[in-house]
């Protein structure tokens, strides 16, 4: 049946600060929930109807008292507010540079993860210890939520969009993953484990079992074309990186015709795009992040880049989530190459 346990293991950099807030709030709860009932009990005994005590001159209002507890409480509340907001920004801030990015795809009722080096997992997430890991998450169907209690992090995983979350594990070991947004019949079974490893072990793990993940285990929405070229690397016994798989798609889907070097300006070059500012035709500027690139592939006319005709066909229904992830990794790799050569 298990032991009495009062808080989950602390296994990330954020767990300590969150628990400090938790215990402060618990202290605050005790600070109020013990004295007030105590005062009530005291009054119940002292002023019981059978007792003869001084009941003279009872007051019915006191501005001093009312204002005192109103602003006293407001002050305490604001203190907690600033503290928790500070931590909230820390958890959900745009990830710091040099994170290890891992793609997570949720679907009824499993988690699928893709490492940039090409390794894929189901219901498991291997990460190196003491490394900032960023999860780029999306769902193939309904809303899920990715929750690792030992890390004190959670974020909803939405269909049609990426959400991100980052953490830095501080202890090797295995921790639970839960889905915390109700997602249908087997919601309770949608979980898994995070395996936190030493960096060297992680790198060894990335090279193990090259390409043995069976095709059927990979998520594939029925009715959509199965991914053609990304499997090529696996068949040759070499695990292709996500970026390499993305490049294959880039060629096979004909993206290269306009976006490649032979495109002759029919479409904007993708080199250096990731993370850059994009000027749109409607005058807006936005940052080319995962969500922008995803939307521009699936529904190109939503955000038209200034100076280019809207001629790109939508790839919605043609590419699956995994292929889009790979394309994004490929486009990102163009940025980092550019960055080093410039």
């Amino acid at each position, binding site marked *: 049946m298990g032991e009495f346990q009062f808080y989950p293991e602390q296994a990330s950099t954020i767990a300590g600060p969150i628990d400090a807030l938790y215990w402060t709030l618990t202290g605050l709860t005790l600070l109020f*929930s013990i004295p007030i009932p105590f005062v009530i009990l005291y009054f119940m005994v002292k002023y019981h109807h059978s007792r003869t005590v001084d009941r003279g001159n009872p007051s019915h209002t006191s501005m001093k008292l009312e204002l005192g507890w109103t602003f006293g409480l407001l002050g305490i*509340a604001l203190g907690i507010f600033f503290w928790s907001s500070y931590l909230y920004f820390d958890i959900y801030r745009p990830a710091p540079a040099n994170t290890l990015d891992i793609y997570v795809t949720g679907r009824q009722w499993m988690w699928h993860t893709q490492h940039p080096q090409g390794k894929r997992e189901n219901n498991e997430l291997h990460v190196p210890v003491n490394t900032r890991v960023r999860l780029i998450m999306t769902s193939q169907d309904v809303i899920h939520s990715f929750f690792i209690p030992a890390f004190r992090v959670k974020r909803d995983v939405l269909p049609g969009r990426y959400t991100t979350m980052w953490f830095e594990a501080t202890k090797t070991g295995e921790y639970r993953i839960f889905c915390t947004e109700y997602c249908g019949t087997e919601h309770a079974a949608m979980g898994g484990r995070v395996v936190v490893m030493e960096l060297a072990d992680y790198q060894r793990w990335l090279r193990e079992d090259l390409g043995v993940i069976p095709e059927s285990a990979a998520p594939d929405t029925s009715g959509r074309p199965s991914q053609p070229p990304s499997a090529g690397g696996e068949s040759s016994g070499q695990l292709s990186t996500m970026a390499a798989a993305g490049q294959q798609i880039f060629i096979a889907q004909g993206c290269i015709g306009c976006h490649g070097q032979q495109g002759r300006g029919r479409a904007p070059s993708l080199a250096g795009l990731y993370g850059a500012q994009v000027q749109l035709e409607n005058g807006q500027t936005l940052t080319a992040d995962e969500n922008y690139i995803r939307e521009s592939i699936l529904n190109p006319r939503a955000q038209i880049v200034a100076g280019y005709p809207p001629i790109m066909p939508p790839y919605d229904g043609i590419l699956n989530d995994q292929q889009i992830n790979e394309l994004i990794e490929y486009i990102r790799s163009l940025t980092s190459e550019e960055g080093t050569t410039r």
Partner: protein
Amino acid sequence: MSSISTPRPQDNFYHDEKYGFRPWLKSWLLTTDHKRIGILYMFAINFFFAIGGLLATGIRAELVTPAADMVNSEVYNRIFTSHGIIMIFFFLIPSIPATLGNFLIPLMIGAKDLAFPKLNLLSWYIFMLAGFFALYTLFTGGIDTGWTFYTPYSTTYANTGVIPMGIAIFIAGFSSILTGLNFIVTIHKMRAPGMTWFRMPLFVWSHYATSLIQVLGTPVLAMTVILLALERIFRIGIFDPQLGGDPVLFQHLFWFYSHPAVYIMLLPGMAIISELITCFSRKRIFGYKFVAFSSLAIAIFGFLVWGHHMFTSSQSVFAGMVFSLISFVVAVPSAIKVFNWTATMYKGRIYYEAPMLYALGFLGLFIIGGLTGLFLAATAMDVHLHDTYFVVAHFHYIMVGGTLMAYIGGLHFWWPKITGRMYSEIWGRISALVVFAGFNLAFFPQFILGQLGMPRRYSSYPEEFQIYHVLSSAGSSILAIGYALPVVYLLLSLKFGPKAPSNPWGATGLEWTTTSPPPTHNFDKTPVVTEEAYSYNPQDPGIFRAQGKW
């Protein structure tokens, strides 16, 4: 009834002047008397509470063991969804306003009836129609979306009774709007001479605030349900990204109503507590205006905090911060009430009658429920606790520990007025204690479960959580006994209870100046109010005449 020399039948509201005593069914089903309609609501609502309670028993029984072995996950999902929908839309939201509010508001302000008596009856029929659709859904396969109906699960993936239940909720909303509208007009226009705004009992103030939310918030729920139906039936893309919609939009719309709805449930509970604490402390309320205006403050700020249900939903961190700030602010008026109730007892003359024990139980549970709300208003803390059992425990402390305790306490307090009979005082006290103990054992362990990471809406769970689930289930069986007891002794009181005098508690308030039960037109002579509410004198030892110790 026959053994007691009751006054002539037409002397009380059970006897309708128009239809006489004979065709009693007709006289009830066609009544426009707010007191009878309140009792009609009471039957309906207690019936739904019983159904919701049975479903809760199913949940707690299943969760005794880690595996989904008593029922499978498919059935479990239907059980917790039905429990939530029935309890919220068919019990908690109408509970106090439609029963005690309906019965008491005209009496308390010295009016003959509500402003629109026929509308009042209509609202009951609308509620029953909605209840019919809800029961129809339960008996034709149920529904498994959770009471929150999150999209795109509810619009595209669920293959259970989303539409019939949506219709039920849509219809039920109209009964809620009509009740709120009726109260607002009644309180504005039908107060007896001398009943100024600041002489009204706080029960009325709190219901006024509740009615504002009902009238302003419920239409948004109706629109949301319509949009949901449009997408589910006609595949018009509003929420499902596959159709070009935005799933988070639904959450905004849903919580824009459903967070204020929490205050629709809670404010009437607070309304009752103000009456009980003053009466059984024999003392005027401390800080009348602060208690009155805190109700309005809750109603207003309550509309601005919906985003605190969405801290993890991909909402921007800045929006999260604003919602967090306002959520902290809305905690303050609730705390003001608690402090004022406590201060009211100072130098009072305190009696431990059953309604008072329920009120004190309310205070204890509401303090814990309110303070744990601060954990969830704190953005970073909520990231960890969101959608875990911590949230489940928190809102049960507010809804069950708060509203339900107040409802049962109020039912005891006004039972003599409503039925003309006294209930068994000793059993009333026992049941209050059993409910308090059972409740804490049932729900306190769930706070720890949530902090450990146990997600809500799980039919099965890892073994390390079992110890707390077993404690919780044990507590809920004690709680069930606590709820069953009043059913027995209150019903027995109808036959065996001593006849109640007009004012068994020596309470102030116009409802106690008329007979128990009151005549159809409430007052033989329109009352004239000359003093503040709660003009109790704690130094007067003889005024309180509790009766009915049988």
